[in-house]
């Protein structure tokens, strides 16, 4: 056989040889392999455990935040977020185009609830006094599917489609204005014509969200009542959308921007995802997630050092063996590849095992939720969201793939130095090496 024909078709054989050697060596040094693998399994387990609980927590924060706020995605005029003026309400055409787009077959599957609201700042007054409030004109049926407020009723009931002068009021406001179920009070706000206009309302329900600021300021009234009172007919200030999963936000924003390309291009309307519209929630999630990454990063750096040490010891122990491989015709790169493949194989197997163990254990023990109420009490709020003390883990395929990729990456990086050592063996010296 001549050299030319060898080099042209022996490569697959060499890959096979390298794989064979790597697998056999892992089996040969079973204790060492298991020790290294166990570090990766533990790392994978903690990663999945921590991230599934973290993702579950974040999803709950987001869910709470968007349902108390303006949804995973909101369509509104760019100025409205700061001005809160009726002048900055959506045109009927934009509202109609938005609602039609959300009813299309492609988008409807991702949508859980849609609520078109008219939100204005006003002043509520009773015989006792007056308080600044946020009046939200809603379609009672749509809003019941959108918001959590209707579930937080402590007295009375939520709005119904036939209601006209009804108001659903937070407990804090009820106490401030000394109201009770059936009490009448007046809200005043600037109407569409720019005049201050008042509306008499009757309390049909009282809610307690757990967020003092919401309980002291939010009043839900029927959209029709708001339209008659403010002269806005059926106009709204925003269309909010709740999605099946917060990760769908990006594509939904893009789809709506496409559907509203004209108004978006002319800056008449803006489509915002929750990270933009609920900045406090986004900041809380981002900071918490960053903290998780840091802790996991430190854990994996420690594990990586352990792997480097173990693999390097294995390389040094087999110094002569690598010399023999070189003498027999393996190139430096191929010799290093033996070590790299060993490391990759080990981390791939242990990574899978760790991810699987993390998933099964977390799901088995905490599938119904991990109850932190002993530590944080029954109710806690921060960054404008109500925190549920029971955290339900959330397993995302993308997150599991991310964890597995990180483990594989760590394994690869940790094997590079030992692989380099194996690749740069001085063959003649290695033959003298006596272990």
């Amino acid at each position, binding site marked *: 056989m*001549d050299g030319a024909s060898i080099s042209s078709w022996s490569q697959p*054989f060499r890959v096979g040889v390298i794989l064979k050697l790597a697998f*056999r*060596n892992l089996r*040969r040094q079973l204790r060492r392999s298991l020790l290294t693998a166990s570090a990766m399994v533990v790392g994978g387990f903690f990663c999945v455990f921590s991230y599934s609980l973290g993702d579950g927590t974040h999803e709950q924060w987001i869910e709470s935040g968007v349902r108390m706020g303006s949804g995973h995605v909101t369509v509104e005029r760019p100025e409205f977020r700061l001005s809160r003026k009726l002048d900055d309400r959506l045109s009927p055409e934009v509202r109609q185009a938005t609602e039609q787009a959300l009813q299309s077959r492609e988008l409807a599957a991702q949508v859980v609830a849609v609520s078109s609201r008219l939100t204005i700042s006003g002043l509520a007054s009773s015989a006792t006094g007056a308080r600044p409030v946020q009046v939200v004109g809603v379609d009672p049926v749509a809003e019941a599917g959108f918001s959590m407020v209707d579930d937080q009723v402590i007295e009375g009931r939520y709005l119904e489609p036939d209601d006209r002068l009804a108001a659903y009021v937070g407990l804090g406001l009820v106490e401030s204005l000394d109201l009770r179920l059936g009490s009448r009070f007046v809200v005043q706000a600037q109407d569409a014509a720019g005049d201050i206009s008042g509306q008499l309302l009757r309390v049909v329900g009282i809610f307690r969200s757990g967020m003092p600021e919401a309980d002291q300021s939010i009043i839900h009234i029927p959209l029709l009542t708001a339209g008659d009172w403010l002269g806005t007919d059926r106009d709204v200030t925003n269309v909010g959308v709740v999605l099946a999963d917060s990760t769908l936000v990006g594509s939904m924003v893009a789809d709506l921007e496409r559907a509203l390309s004209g108004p978006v291009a002319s800056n008449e309307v803006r489509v915002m995802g929750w990270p933009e519209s609920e900045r406090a929630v986004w900041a809380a999630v981002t900071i918490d997630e960053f903290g998780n990454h840091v802790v996991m990063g430190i854990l994996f750096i420690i594990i990586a050092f352990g792997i480097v040490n173990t693999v390097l010891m294995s390389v040094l122990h087999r110094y*002569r063996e690598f010399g023999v491989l070189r003498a027999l*015709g393996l190139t430096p790169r191929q010799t290093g590849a033996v070590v790299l493949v060993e490391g990759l194989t080990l981390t791939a197997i242990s990574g899978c095992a760790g991810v699987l163990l993390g998933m099964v254990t977390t799901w088995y023990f905490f599938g119904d939720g991990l109850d932190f109420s002993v530590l944080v009490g029954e109710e806690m709020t921060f960054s404008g969201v109500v925190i549920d003390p029971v955290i339900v883990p959330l397993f995302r395929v993308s997150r599991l793939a991310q964890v597995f990729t990180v483990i594989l990456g760590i394994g690869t990086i940790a094997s590079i130095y030992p692989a380099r050592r194996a690749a740069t063996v001085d063959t003649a010296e290695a*033959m003298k090496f006596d272990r």
Partner: protein
Amino acid sequence: MTNYDGPAVSTTGVWKVFEQEAEEVTAVRDVSLAIERGEFTALAGPSGSGKTTLLNLIGGLTRPTRGQVQVAGREISEMSNQDLARLRLEEVGFVFQAYNLLPVLTALENAEFPMLLKGIDEEERQTRVRELFVRTGLDGLEDRRPGKLSGGQQQRVAVVRAVASNPALVLADEPTANLDSASSESLLDMMSDLNRDLGVTFVFATHDGHVMERSRRLVRMVDGQIDSDETQA
């Protein structure tokens, strides 16, 4: 093996100087040597005479400080690591003092390893190795790992590994040093047979009197230089 008809190996004015803690040690000093195909040559000499270093230079395991080394007509002094690896695979078989079989492979897998790297198909590999196993008394030990073989058996497997892929030459560094006299004698018989019957070129580095006696050409080295070069009956 290539179709080159010249010497299996030749060196011209080869020097090897090692730097050890700011001190230069000359291991091989101006050695010029040609070894023809089919020779059964021993490089003999006391420890430190440079015979192993010369063997390593011929095998491309280390590079000369000066001079030229040609293996099967190919100048190897300036070859890249990649090309040296290919040369070793194609032209050179090695037998080491400490056997150096790969512990994770069976005797048969060890013996066919260079052929596997060359991409020779399984049927041909197995045929060649089994033939050599029968010839060298290793028949029946194919599936044993090195740890389950005696020193003599391991060294026989190492010799089969070295010759199985038909290299231009086989370099053996103190192949009998770890063997008892019976095993040593048996190994020499085996290599002598392979040399005679198959025309395999053997070059030994040795200080074993037995090996020197059995070799047909004896190159004695002292202080890194060739002291004598005799052809024996």
